[in-house]
Protein backbone atom coordinates (compact mmCIF):
# COMPACT_ATOMS: atom_id res chain seq x y z
CA UNK A 1 0.00 0.00 0.00
CA UNK A 2 1.14 3.48 -0.69
CA UNK A 3 0.31 7.05 0.17
CA UNK A 4 0.60 10.11 -2.04
CA UNK A 5 3.14 12.72 -1.00
CA UNK A 6 0.41 15.37 -1.07
CA UNK A 7 -1.65 13.32 1.39
CA UNK A 8 1.30 13.08 3.80
CA UNK A 9 1.88 16.80 3.57
CA UNK A 10 -1.79 17.58 4.13
CA UNK A 11 -2.01 15.38 7.23
CA UNK A 12 1.08 16.94 8.76
CA UNK A 13 -0.17 20.46 8.09
CA UNK A 14 -3.61 19.66 9.49
CA UNK A 15 -2.00 18.75 12.80
CA UNK A 16 0.87 21.24 12.75
CA UNK A 17 -0.51 24.28 10.90
CA UNK A 18 2.70 26.31 10.75
CA UNK A 19 4.77 23.38 9.49
CA UNK A 20 6.95 23.80 6.47
CA UNK A 21 6.89 20.38 4.88
CA UNK A 22 9.26 19.13 2.21
CA UNK A 23 8.70 15.63 0.89
CA UNK A 24 10.84 13.59 -1.45
CA UNK A 25 9.73 10.32 -3.00
CA UNK A 26 12.94 8.35 -2.57
CA UNK A 27 12.22 5.35 -4.74
CA UNK A 28 9.48 6.69 -7.01
CA UNK A 29 7.15 3.96 -5.78
CA UNK A 30 4.91 6.04 -3.50
CA UNK A 31 6.11 4.02 -0.52
CA UNK A 32 9.54 5.34 0.44
CA UNK A 33 9.57 8.99 1.39
CA UNK A 34 11.83 11.45 3.10
CA UNK A 35 10.11 14.29 4.90
CA UNK A 36 11.57 17.39 6.44
CA UNK A 37 9.25 19.23 8.80
CA UNK A 38 10.12 22.64 10.18
CA UNK A 39 7.86 24.19 12.79
CA UNK A 40 8.05 26.77 15.53
CA UNK A 41 5.94 24.42 17.64
CA UNK A 42 8.96 22.09 17.99
CA UNK A 43 10.77 24.70 20.09
CA UNK A 44 11.95 23.18 23.34
CA UNK A 45 10.95 19.64 22.34
CA UNK A 46 13.45 16.78 22.22
CA UNK A 47 14.04 15.15 18.84
CA UNK A 48 12.03 12.17 19.98
CA UNK A 49 9.06 14.38 20.87
CA UNK A 50 9.34 16.23 17.54
CA UNK A 51 9.25 13.00 15.59
CA UNK A 52 6.41 11.67 17.75
CA UNK A 53 4.41 14.82 16.91
CA UNK A 54 4.80 14.08 13.20
CA UNK A 55 3.97 10.41 13.67
CA UNK A 56 0.87 11.44 15.61
CA UNK A 57 -0.11 13.78 12.78
CA UNK A 58 0.03 10.82 10.41
CA UNK A 59 -2.37 8.95 12.65
CA UNK A 60 -0.71 5.57 12.97
CA UNK A 61 0.13 5.19 9.28
CA UNK A 62 3.87 5.24 9.85
CA UNK A 63 5.02 1.69 10.43
CA UNK A 64 1.82 0.46 8.80
CA UNK A 65 0.74 1.47 5.32
CA UNK A 66 3.57 3.95 5.18
CA UNK A 67 6.57 1.68 5.58
CA UNK A 68 9.43 4.01 5.03
CA UNK A 69 9.36 7.63 6.07
CA UNK A 70 12.79 9.06 6.62
CA UNK A 71 12.09 11.94 8.94
CA UNK A 72 13.95 15.10 9.78
CA UNK A 73 12.50 17.76 12.05
CA UNK A 74 13.74 21.22 12.91
CA UNK A 75 12.84 24.54 14.44
CA UNK A 76 13.05 27.49 12.01
CA UNK A 77 16.43 29.19 12.20
CA UNK A 78 16.16 32.72 13.50
CA UNK A 79 17.67 35.35 11.26
CA UNK A 80 21.27 35.76 12.27
CA UNK A 81 23.00 39.03 11.60
Amino acid at each position, binding site marked *: MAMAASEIERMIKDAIPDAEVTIRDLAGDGDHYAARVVSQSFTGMS*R*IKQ*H*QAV*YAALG*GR*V*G*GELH*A*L*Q*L*ETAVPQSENI
Partner: protein
Amino acid sequence: MSAHDRIADIVNAHDIVLFMKGTALFPQCGFSSRAIAILDRLGATYETVDVLQDPEIRAGIKDYSEWPTIPQLYVRGEFVGGSDIMMEMFESGELQQVLAPAA
Protein backbone atom coordinates in the same frame (compact mmCIF):
# COMPACT_ATOMS: atom_id res chain seq x y z
CA MET B 1 5.82 -12.15 31.65
CA SER B 2 4.29 -9.32 29.61
CA ALA B 3 5.96 -7.91 26.51
CA HIS B 4 6.52 -4.67 28.39
CA ASP B 5 8.35 -6.48 31.21
CA ARG B 6 10.42 -8.52 28.77
CA ILE B 7 11.49 -5.36 26.94
CA ALA B 8 12.26 -3.58 30.22
CA ASP B 9 14.45 -6.52 31.24
CA ILE B 10 16.34 -6.41 27.93
CA VAL B 11 16.99 -2.67 27.92
CA ASN B 12 18.07 -2.74 31.55
CA ALA B 13 20.36 -5.73 31.09
CA HIS B 14 22.51 -4.17 28.36
CA ASP B 15 24.09 -0.73 28.12
CA ILE B 16 23.41 -0.46 24.40
CA VAL B 17 20.58 -2.38 22.73
CA LEU B 18 19.26 -2.09 19.20
CA PHE B 19 15.86 -3.57 18.38
CA MET B 20 16.06 -4.26 14.66
CA LYS B 21 14.84 -6.34 11.74
CA GLY B 22 17.38 -9.09 11.13
CA THR B 23 20.79 -9.38 12.73
CA ALA B 24 23.88 -7.19 12.79
CA LEU B 25 25.41 -9.42 10.11
CA PHE B 26 22.24 -9.69 8.04
CA PRO B 27 19.95 -6.70 8.55
CA GLN B 28 16.59 -7.23 6.84
CA CYS B 29 15.71 -3.58 6.30
CA GLY B 30 17.58 -0.51 5.09
CA PHE B 31 16.85 1.47 8.24
CA SER B 32 18.15 -1.30 10.51
CA SER B 33 21.19 -1.63 8.27
CA ARG B 34 21.89 2.08 8.62
CA ALA B 35 21.59 1.89 12.42
CA ILE B 36 24.12 -0.96 12.54
CA ALA B 37 26.50 0.92 10.25
CA ILE B 38 26.42 3.90 12.60
CA LEU B 39 27.06 1.81 15.73
CA ASP B 40 29.90 -0.07 14.02
CA ARG B 41 31.41 3.16 12.79
CA LEU B 42 31.53 4.38 16.38
CA GLY B 43 33.08 1.12 17.53
CA ALA B 44 30.25 0.54 19.98
CA THR B 45 29.69 -2.75 21.74
CA TYR B 46 26.00 -3.46 21.50
CA GLU B 47 23.34 -6.10 21.81
CA THR B 48 20.73 -6.60 19.09
CA VAL B 49 17.22 -8.04 19.26
CA ASP B 50 15.72 -9.34 16.01
CA VAL B 51 12.04 -8.39 16.19
CA LEU B 52 11.26 -10.56 13.17
CA GLN B 53 11.97 -13.58 15.38
CA ASP B 54 9.68 -12.41 18.15
CA PRO B 55 6.20 -11.08 17.22
CA GLU B 56 5.41 -10.18 20.83
CA ILE B 57 8.47 -7.94 21.11
CA ARG B 58 7.86 -6.56 17.63
CA ALA B 59 4.38 -5.37 18.61
CA GLY B 60 5.28 -4.48 22.19
CA ILE B 61 8.30 -2.31 21.45
CA LYS B 62 6.10 0.19 19.58
CA ASP B 63 3.98 0.76 22.68
CA TYR B 64 6.94 0.65 25.02
CA SER B 65 8.53 3.72 23.43
CA GLU B 66 5.44 5.20 21.77
CA TRP B 67 7.44 4.93 18.59
CA PRO B 68 5.94 3.29 15.50
CA THR B 69 9.03 2.09 13.68
CA ILE B 70 12.01 -0.25 13.94
CA PRO B 71 14.99 0.09 14.54
CA GLN B 72 15.01 1.54 18.05
CA LEU B 73 18.14 2.30 20.03
CA TYR B 74 18.27 2.18 23.83
CA VAL B 75 21.24 3.31 25.87
CA ARG B 76 21.32 2.51 29.59
CA GLY B 77 17.58 1.94 29.60
CA GLU B 78 16.70 5.18 27.80
CA PHE B 79 15.11 5.28 24.36
CA VAL B 80 17.41 7.34 22.12
CA GLY B 81 15.57 7.19 18.79
CA GLY B 82 15.28 5.49 15.44
CA SER B 83 17.73 5.51 12.56
CA ASP B 84 17.00 9.09 11.45
CA ILE B 85 17.69 10.47 14.92
CA MET B 86 20.76 8.25 15.21
CA MET B 87 22.07 9.68 11.94
CA GLU B 88 21.41 13.28 13.01
CA MET B 89 23.08 12.68 16.36
CA PHE B 90 25.98 10.89 14.71
CA GLU B 91 26.57 13.80 12.34
CA SER B 92 26.41 16.35 15.16
CA GLY B 93 28.69 14.32 17.42
CA GLU B 94 26.01 13.84 20.09
CA LEU B 95 25.68 10.12 19.61
CA GLN B 96 29.35 9.57 20.39
CA GLN B 97 28.79 11.36 23.71
CA VAL B 98 25.65 9.40 24.53
CA LEU B 99 27.38 6.11 23.82
CA ALA B 100 30.76 7.00 25.26
CA PRO B 101 30.44 5.87 28.87
CA ALA B 102 28.80 2.64 27.71
CA ALA B 103 30.97 1.79 24.71
